């Protein structure tokens, strides 16, 4: 019997978080959403559900399965693209293979959560990833039942600048040519959400089962174990997040173990499913004789 599961999460930023969207002049700016406040519309930093979904669930979850099933180095590029990025519809004549969908749901609880796109078939996902809502005064109404203090800091207090330098290849060529001691370093800067800020967000699994819940929890654990980053500039130490579940009544470890056991049990079938779903079509035999084009003389 299916059930709808809702996970409420509180994520504290452990390092500056640069989930960016565009630039102003030379400065990269953090992604912001318009929020109606008593003082008018304000642009407040947020984390997109898409970013959370990919970094915290899809990537760690599938990477673990690929390793667990011994598929490292054995998957084709389309298969990897399907698992790690959702895939794309590349073949015409899309069809609805219900047996394939049923097997997908049975064999891949993580796949049922996230969905994907086979070359000839779209598989819908069942998890909704909420946006990360910054805990600030402007978002008070959106924070609903969260136990927030009477007065929160305004959003702009959580936005901090950063600056780094990188080598400018063009300048480097000039420096070499002129044999001067001029620096080839180029400054770049931008905005980040500062350390210590908090985002609330959540996941809803529609018509799910404990296996899918376990897949989600196990992916989150793997993501946290791998550093738990979201947004850009992770190479420079940005984007580390400490995620906690709010008032979760289930047995996290038990659900994770059940999911892991299931994944190990269905390994053979799952690998076969992946191979069949991405089997290349047999080429059509060449026609014995090409049809003459209009106006072309036929051999008599």
């Amino acid at each position, binding site marked *: 019997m299916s059930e709808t599961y809702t996970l409420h999460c*509180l994520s504290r930023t452990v390092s500056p978080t640069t989930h960016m969207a565009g630039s102003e002049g030379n400065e990269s700016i953090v992604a912001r959403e318009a929020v109606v406040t008593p003082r008018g519309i304000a642009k407040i930093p947020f984390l997109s559900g898409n970013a959370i979904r990919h970094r915290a669930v899809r990537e760690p979850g599938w990477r673990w399965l690929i390793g667990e099933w011994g598929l490292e180095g054995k998957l084709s590029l389309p298969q990897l693209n399907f698992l790690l990025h959702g895939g794309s519809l590349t073949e015409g004549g899309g069809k609805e293979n219900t047996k394939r969908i049923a097997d997908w749901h049975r064999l891949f609880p993580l796949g049922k959560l996230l969905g994907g796109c086979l070359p000839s078939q779209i598989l819908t996902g069942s998890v909704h990833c909420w946006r990360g809502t910054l805990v600030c005064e402007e978002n008070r109404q959106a924070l609903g039942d969260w136990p927030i203090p009477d*007065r929160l800091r305004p959003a702009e207090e959580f936005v901090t600048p950063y600056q780094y330098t990188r080598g400018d290849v063009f300048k480097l060529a000039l420096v070499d040519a002129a044999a001067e001691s001029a620096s080839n370093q180029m400054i770049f800067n931008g905005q980040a959400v500062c350390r210590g*800020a908090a985002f609330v967000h959540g996941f809803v699994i529609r018509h799910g089962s404990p296996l899918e819940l376990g897949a989600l929890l196990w992916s989150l654990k793997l993501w946290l174990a791998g550093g738990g980053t979201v947004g850009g500039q992770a190479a420079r130490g940005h984007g580390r997040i400490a995620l*906690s*579940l709010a008032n979760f009544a289930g047995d996290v470890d038990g659900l994770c173990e059940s999911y892991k056991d299931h994944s190990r049990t269905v390994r053979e079938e799952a690998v076969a499913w992946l191979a069949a779903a991405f089997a290349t079509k047999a080429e059509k035999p060449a026609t014995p004789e090409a049809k003459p084009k209009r106006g072309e003389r036929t051999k008599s």
Partner: protein
Amino acid sequence: MNTQATLLVLDTEAIRRELAGLADPLKHNPGGTEVQEIKETAIRLCSILAHLFGEALERVTLWAKIDAALAGACAKVSDADLGRFVTLCLDTIQADPARAFACDPMVTLLQVFEVRPPEWRYAFVNHIASRRYAVVALGRQRWEQVKNKEVDL
């Protein structure tokens, strides 16, 4: 891959504690009477600083230096230590130690700070940090009244 990271589960009370740190300290409102007392004490501190302004400094920089002293002290005092707050201010205005030690209004002020609860002292620093220009402007007005012997220092 290290999979030992724990997925913490927080109850409502733990979440409340987590989020308490995001409260805006500049909007702390300890109550109407206390707010008025904090406001008057901050203005009085300004006039005392004017009284103890170092002779080595140019007199025309009096209020700019006091403003800088308050700003610096607000930035450096991250707790409720008002003794350190006052000391930093006196350092900036290069107050003569002998005059400062003998300044009864300042000693009285320090005694007041000692008996006030931490919430009050936090609110005092936050009041100055968030309303520095107003505090200095009103402090200057009070200093004029002190010079005209309209009020005591």
